[in-house]
């Protein structure tokens, strides 16, 4: 089966995120009050061939741990959809 995958890489809790902090200041500068906790990460989309969703998740999890994130400073949220590689 073909699964569409979205990996959202984000800076771990407690790790400074200067890009997010800068955007937050700019948002306040535009007059939007009450916007907080801005964090910037990255989104990586791809498709995976696997027998089932559990296998796809296991493979993506390993990929995140080994390569797509640096576990010292980053976490990842993984979404897996069985929609043939369409956008999740």
């Amino acid at each position: 089966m073909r699964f569409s995958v979205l990996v959202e890489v984000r800076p771990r809790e407690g790790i400074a995120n200067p890009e997010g902090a800068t955007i937050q200041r700019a948002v306040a500068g535009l007059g939007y009050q009450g916007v907080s906790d801005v964090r910037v990460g990255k989104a990586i989309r791809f498709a995976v061939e696997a027998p089932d969703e559990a296998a796809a998740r296991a493979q993506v999890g390993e990929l995140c741990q080994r390569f797509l994130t640096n576990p010292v400073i980053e976490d990842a949220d993984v979404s897996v959809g069985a929609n043939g590689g369409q956008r999740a």
Partner: protein
Amino acid sequence: MRTAGIVVFPGSNCEHDVAEALGMAGMGARMIWHGDAGVGDVDALVLPGGFAHGDYLRPGAIARFSPVMAAVEAFAREGGPVIGICNGFQVLTEAGLLPGALRQNCGLKFLCTTVRTRVDSGRSALTCSVATGTRLSLPINHFSGAYTCAPDTLAELRSEERIVLRYLDNPNGSLDDIAGICSPAGNVVGLMPHPERACDPLGLQDGIPLWAGLVATVAGVAEATRSA
């Protein structure tokens, strides 16, 4: 003459400066392409600065899987001196040869300047010839140079005297002012400043004692091997 291998990745750009600095210190240099399977017969390895693989994904993230890295890891495990400068430091942390990570500078500024640093430990392959407390002015040139690690890792680095170089005026938000660290055995060293750019007879010269340290380390390793 002792020879250091300089590991060149697509996007490295400090390899010739390193070769020049090594030559001034009395060591030969040989370029090793990242796609090579081995490092050959060398006495030390240097991973130079630059933007290996375009810094895509994260600095060092792709370089750590370059074919040559297995040989670099084996060389380090056997106690061989491995020096990572700037992007090379990032590669070594990604490869797990040094703990922690380098994140983006606070202020999101690409820093290209000369900073004052202090040698805080002489138990590394690079700082062994320099008295603790010595101040060195060294160039930096990086966007992701703020060292960070877990609290227990920091405690370990401190207690084992593995923080070899600190910034006097922290330029990038680095944890505990860290500019350079080493492995438990001291043979693997990573630092953000560029000692190879401070070996100019008419300019900055504070990198010279660090390269002298590497030469002394290599001589010491050779001596130990002979007497063993």
